[in-house]
């Protein structure tokens, strides 16, 4: 008994230590991230006025999708004359030619004496953000320690309040919570990495903190990636671009993708539900063979259809239009199969009862079938939305690149990748926006899933 008690105490201490480490690590990173965002935002607003007087033509972040070591600006000028860029010195615009690029801090065209430049401003931004973050570091660490202490106190209180014979159960629950917390960390880590990388200046995306590899929040944050992605990095005095250049921006790509994916998802769900209903509930000659034939088409890789489909689309004169992005994919055999399987589980007696009450075929479909199939319809909607939201190859080949209004998000993101390099900061900052619709849809649909499942369970 005493041995068992000692083991429980040892297990409790080990689990508590694990919890403290975990909570301190997680909350430390979260608070550091918060202080980083706060520092970047406030520093960004402070420099908004100097950038307004930037000489024309001196903007230009080194490009995304850059196969070369190019830098922007007419005359590449380094910030500082050493390889070090954007160090602790708040303002240090040098004059030697630079291979530096990738951050706002490394770009510029004139010495500071000529007036504020993007380089100068960015340098101030970077340094201000860095300094502010350094100032907030003790607060972030203190808050993380406080969270850990509160959690420890809470667990200790519960441990003491738990009767000796129930402590085994308590430990199991404690272990479960800790294991689940670890699982959450593993699942969310890539998203957190994405968020952190989007704030990293070019050249620092791959740098690992040797002392603590899990410390991935940048110490020198920059909002330059977001500004670049949204094309908000152009100074007020910059020359006015033509219409095509003006339209080439992330928001155009984003809205295009939203329209394409949502229209495709709605139409695919509509057509698949109609076809699924017929295959599940209606009698027609050779229905089984027809369905088997449809299923057979799933065996053929989608790549095989691509060129013939592109040929048809081009002959229809639709190349470059939004309709071309999803028209060939509106007939989804997978969708028909999925919905048919679900609709077969809906009792036929319900339809018969409705028919007796005088319901038309459309009413049977819209009043009985669709509401009862809502969970699976939403699933298909989401899957189709996801497919079109990230469908790169098809959208690439039907895009008319002369017209930015036909460029969608996956294709637009590819413009950030070059022959040998990828600008990770830009890609990650664009990805931060691109996951929003999917996350929102999942959050909304999740409720309906659960609701629908429960209804189904009660009915059957």
């Amino acid at each position: 008994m005493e041995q068992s008690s000692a083991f429980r105490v040892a297990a409790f201490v080990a689990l508590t230590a694990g919890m403290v480490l975990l909570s301190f690590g997680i909350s430390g990173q979260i608070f550091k991230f918060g202080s980083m965002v706060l520092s970047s935002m406030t520093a960004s607003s402070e420099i908004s006025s100097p950038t307004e007087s930037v000489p024309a033509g001196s903007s230009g972040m080194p490009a995304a999708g850059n196969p070369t070591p190019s830098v922007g600006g007419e005359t590449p000028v380094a910030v500082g004359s050493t390889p070090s860029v954007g160090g602790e010195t708040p303002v240090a615009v040098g004059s030697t030619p630079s291979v530096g690029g990738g951050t706002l801090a490394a770009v510029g065209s004139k010495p500071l004496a000529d007036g504020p430049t993007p380089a100068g401003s960015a340098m101030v931004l970077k340094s201000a953000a860095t300094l502010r973050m350094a100032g907030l570091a003790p607060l972030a660490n203190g808050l993380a320690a406080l969270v850990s202490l509160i959690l420890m106190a809470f667990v200790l209180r519960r441990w003491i309040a738990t009767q000796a014979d129930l402590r085994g159960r308590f430990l199991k629950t404690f272990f479960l919570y800790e294991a689940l917390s670890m699982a959450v960390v593993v699942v969310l880590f890539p998203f957190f990495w994405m968020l952190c990388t989007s704030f990293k200046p070019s050249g620092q995306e791959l740098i690992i903190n040797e002392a603590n590899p899990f410390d991935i929040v940048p110490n020198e944050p920059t909002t330059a990636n977001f500004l670049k992605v949204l094309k908000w990095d152009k100074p007020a005095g910059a020359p006015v671009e033509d219409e095509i250049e003006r339209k080439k921006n992330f928001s155009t790509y984003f809205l295009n993708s939203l329209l394409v994916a949502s229209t495709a998802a709605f139409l695919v769900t509509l057509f698949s539900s109609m076809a699924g209903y017929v295959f599940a509930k209606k009698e027609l000659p050779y229905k089984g063979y027809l369905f088997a034939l449809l299923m057979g088409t799933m065996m053929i890789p989608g790549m095989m259809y691509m060129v013939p489909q592109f040929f048809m689309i081009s002959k229809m004169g639709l190349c470059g239009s939004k309709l071309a992005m999803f028209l060939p994919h509106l007939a989804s055999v997978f969708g028909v199969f999925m919905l048919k399987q679900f609709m077969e589980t809906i009792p036929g007696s319900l339809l018969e009862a409705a028919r007796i009450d005088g319901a038309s075929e459309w009413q049977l479909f819209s009043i009985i079938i669709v509401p009862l199939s809502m969970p699976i319809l939403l699933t298909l909607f989401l899957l189709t939305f996801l497919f079109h939201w990230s469908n790169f190859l098809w959208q690439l080949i039907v895009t008319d690149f002369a017209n930015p209004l036909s460029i969608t998000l996956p294709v637009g993101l590819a413009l950030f990748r070059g022959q040998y390099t990828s600008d990770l900061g830009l890609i990650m900052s664009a990805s931060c926006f691109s996951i929003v619709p999917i996350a929102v849809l999942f959050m909304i649909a999740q409720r309906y899933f659960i609701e629908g499942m429960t209804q189904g369970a009660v009915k059957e």
Partner: protein
Amino acid sequence: MNKNYLPWIFGIFYLFLLAATWNDRVDVNASGRTILQFWHTYNDDEEKLLKEVIAEWEAQPANSNWAIRPIRIPFDGHKPKIRTALTVGLGPDFARVDWSFVCELARKNACVDLETFGFSKISDQYLSAPLNTNRIDGKYYGLPDQTTCVALFYNKTIFRDANLDPEKPPKTWDEFIETAKKLTNSEKGTYGFGMDNTLWWTLPFFNTFGAKLISDDGKKCLLDSEAAVKALEFKASLFSVHKIEAGAWRAGAISPESGFVNGRYAMIFMGPWNLPKFTNSKLDFGVALIPAGPAGSSSNVGGTNAVIFKSSKNPRPCYDFLTFFTSAEIQARWCKRLNQMPVNRKSYDLFSFDDKNLQVFMEQLKTSVSNPIVTSYEMLEDVVNPEMEAVITGQKTAADALGNASRKVEAKVLSL
């Protein structure tokens, strides 16, 4: 009832979205000139300069009938985009493509033999290594518009820590091994060298040993030659015998780029495209020529070429523009401004970089050797890479692996 508002919200949002994206045409005013479509993969800065060059060319009286319309496509996917567009006749007049794509386009009869325009009269002005990536079956089907190669990057801080002179990087493979041994501390997880193991990254080894991989007529694979075997044996020995290579080529290992930035690998092969990144990462590094082997110092070739498609109704002005674009003066201006390597030999006399690292790349390009030219370079990599890995991991001897690779290349790649 209270949940019925969602479809309405979605409906209104959708209508708003539809209105916002309804117009999907942008009008381009060509001022009555005939439009020549140029598909390229340049980045923002390059595109800006390209437009300036186009404006200059269009302003010349001889070109008053033409308007070049540069259209940017993603590099990642430019091959399928061009392939499919050409299939249905929607291709551009001319395009900038990856160096490895020219052979496929030429052999599929998609692009114009530049001799039609008398290219041989001016071909001498281009650097031979990038130029030869356009030479397919004895004819030039494109001209280089941008070139690059890899050189040896070394971490000066690690050199200092190992009591080595950071201004004296190794010049020969023997010196390289000696230096790397001093820089390796496997207990601390730092290594003298980190390397990739794909064919393109291995070409500097083959080239410094004087190995030619494909015969001039493109019909025989020479991977099993004595020089190639020695080169691969040497490369494998860096990992397996001398223990100075970190195994960076293995799946899941720290990549050479990441290892170099984090001070794990003291030396790597890298191209000029990463100079800005490394500079921004506050790394104290230098660039040196690839260590010399029996055939001296040499490297591979990267970059892009420009081709004119047979479907173009006006190939001549496309050619005129490309020769103007790659002329010595334009190249000098382009490269000086964008820190790139000129493809035109005469440009090297017109300017020089102040940056020492870029100077090294200019020097390295002079001794670089053209890559193997095959219809599908991707397939060549797919065939050769596993064989090379088998050598490094000790599963096969270099002679066996390359003999095997040679047979496969002749059967699968050279027969295309």
